[in-house]
């Protein structure tokens, strides 16, 4: 039984799980490496190594493969010196080693403009925007979600409107947010809040509603008053699930970050990315995107670990 990799809904051994987790990162990396390093796989461009007699060619210039072949044919007809070049990928697809290099140099390179920010400063700006957006959303969203999952009256009063509002795309409020909150961090935080809050209320109220009602009945037969039920049964009962919801919602908040940071004055990691793209430093763009992924996955793993500590009675978490 243990030797089967494809047993239906059976957990694998720890080693196999580890192997597959690593493979899940290695596979896309492998595809990327193949496309980058194996010349005949894609490489639609030619990187000029010697311009020959073609007037506008320069060393290290990227030209379309078709153009290059046409120019070579023309030179051959006219009996002039032929240009030389090697197959290459477009500039927007740097090879893995360039990006790995950039992951390091991005932190060590001073900003291009004198008043510009270092990468770590940009990142820190972004993290603050996410943090405050998520905290503000949670301060209202979590209690409201729990209340509307517990009391039908609250749910009936708030949920229809929230259900409507969650379909409105958060970025659509960008201009409005700038008008109200100015051009700095205010409107960015507001976009994160708008993007998170409405989903948060609905998800948490749904989680709260899933709490086994018989636990509430048991508490009532033990003499728990209606008001004490919320604090002593509902909240502790949903806490582990609520914590899992919050982890997922935090991930969503990150996806609103880039749009949020474009509003008003561009800032944070988005500013860094747009700057680097403008100078065609695409390896830096990839590096920055990777860093967001690493921060996201990293925080989630830390939070998952913390969750196991916080809720030792929670079975699903401890099985993970």
């Amino acid at each position, binding site marked *: 039984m243990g030797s089967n990799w494809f047993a239906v809904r059976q957990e694998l051994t720890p080693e196999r799980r580890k192997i597959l987790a690593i493979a899940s990162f290695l596979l896309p990396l492998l595809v990327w490496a193949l496309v980058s390093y194996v010349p005949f796989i894609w490489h639609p461009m030619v990187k000029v190594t010697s311009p020959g007699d073609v007037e506008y060619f320069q060393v290290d210039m990227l030209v379309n493969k078709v153009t290059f072949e046409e120019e070579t044919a023309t030179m051959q007809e006219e009996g002039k010196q032929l240009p030389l070049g090697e197959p290459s990928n477009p500039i927007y697809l740097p090879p893995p080693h360039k990006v790995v290099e950039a992951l390091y140099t991005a932190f060590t390179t001073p900003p291009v403009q004198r008043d510009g920010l270092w990468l770590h400063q940009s990142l820190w700006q972004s993290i603050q925007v996410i943090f405050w957006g998520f905290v503000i959303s949670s301060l209202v969203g979590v209690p409201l979600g729990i209340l509307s999952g517990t009391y039908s009256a609250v749910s009936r009063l708030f949920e229809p409107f929230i259900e409507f509002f969650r379909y409105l795309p958060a970025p659509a409020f960008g201009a409005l947010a700038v008008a109200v909150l100015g051009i700095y961090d205010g409107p960015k935080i507001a976009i994160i809040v708008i993007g998170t809050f409405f989903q948060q209320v609905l998800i948490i109220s749904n989680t709260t509603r899933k709490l086994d009602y*018989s636990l509430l*009945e048991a508490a009532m*037969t*033990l003499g728990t*008053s209606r008001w004490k039920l919320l604090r002593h049964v509902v909240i502790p009962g949903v806490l582990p699930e609520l914590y899992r919801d919050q982890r997922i919602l935090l991930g969503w908040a990150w996806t609103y970050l880039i749009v949020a940071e474009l509003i008003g004055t561009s800032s944070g990691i988005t500013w860094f990315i747009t700057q680097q793209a403008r100078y065609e430093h695409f390896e830096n763009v990839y590096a920055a995107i990777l860093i967001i992924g690493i921060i996201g996955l990293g925080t989630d793993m830390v939070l998952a670990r913390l969750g196991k500590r916080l809720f030792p*009675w929670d079975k699903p978490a401890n099985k993970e």
Partner: protein
Amino acid sequence: MQANTDQISYLTQSEAVKARFDKLKQREVILEVKNLTKVYHGAKGETTALKDVSFKTHRREFVCVIGPSGCGKSTLIRTLAGLESYTSGEVLLDGKPVTGPGRDRGMVFQGYTLFPWLSVKKNVMFGLEMNGMPSEEASREVALWLELVGLEKFANAYPHELSGGMKQRVAIARALVNQPRILLMDEPFGALDAQTRCKMQTHLLEIWRNIDITILFITHDLDEAILLADRILVLKAHPGEVQELIEVSVPRPRSPDQLFTPEFIATKARLEELIHPPTEPVDEDAVSVPSRMIRFVNVADNVE
């Protein structure tokens, strides 16, 4: 059928049993249900779940409620617990009407319903804390009750670490620590395996003997009802009505050894008759085994 010289009526009671019942009926009434009726208003019109149910239980009596599925036994116990409303009639505990759930009626559910985030000790302590007992005093109280159910060693375990039988013992302790007037048990051993169930029955009788508690116990297991109960309230289905209130003539103290005593057999026969009334005899030929059956195994492969 064959003649059985031992056969007695389920109504026959020995002197000792009769004396016990007389004494029992002199104790004060704890729970009185008068003409309890419950009508559900559903999409398909009205359904009468309970109709004119009346009975009394006396202090320290053990009553089992039994009946076919759909007879409203769960509705009955949930109504007594105050978890469901009723259409008409009265439920009186110590002469006072029941209006909602309260600590004077402890309840044990089939699904354990322990609080998964609390340790065994904290689970048992829950009721005391909700009712404002200082935690030091509650802690001492809880220790006693955990000892009673034999789980003092598991005080700090979480419910998911316990077996089904242990969970149910915690649930019993949790209900009893509040010192309710009556303990309502809704098929508490229904989810347990046969062996554990048997142990739990003995254990419950032991608890009942040692503390001042009246028990109303729902079950669909006839043996369980006879083994545990002083009186068995038999309900019938559609609508749920009282069919008979049987005084169990099996003498106490009870044990599983009494399963084949004449009183036990007679009582069980009576319950069978009430719950599975004899149906119209079916055509003999239709169900008889065919004289020659198709053979699916090799001729040489015989089992007899």
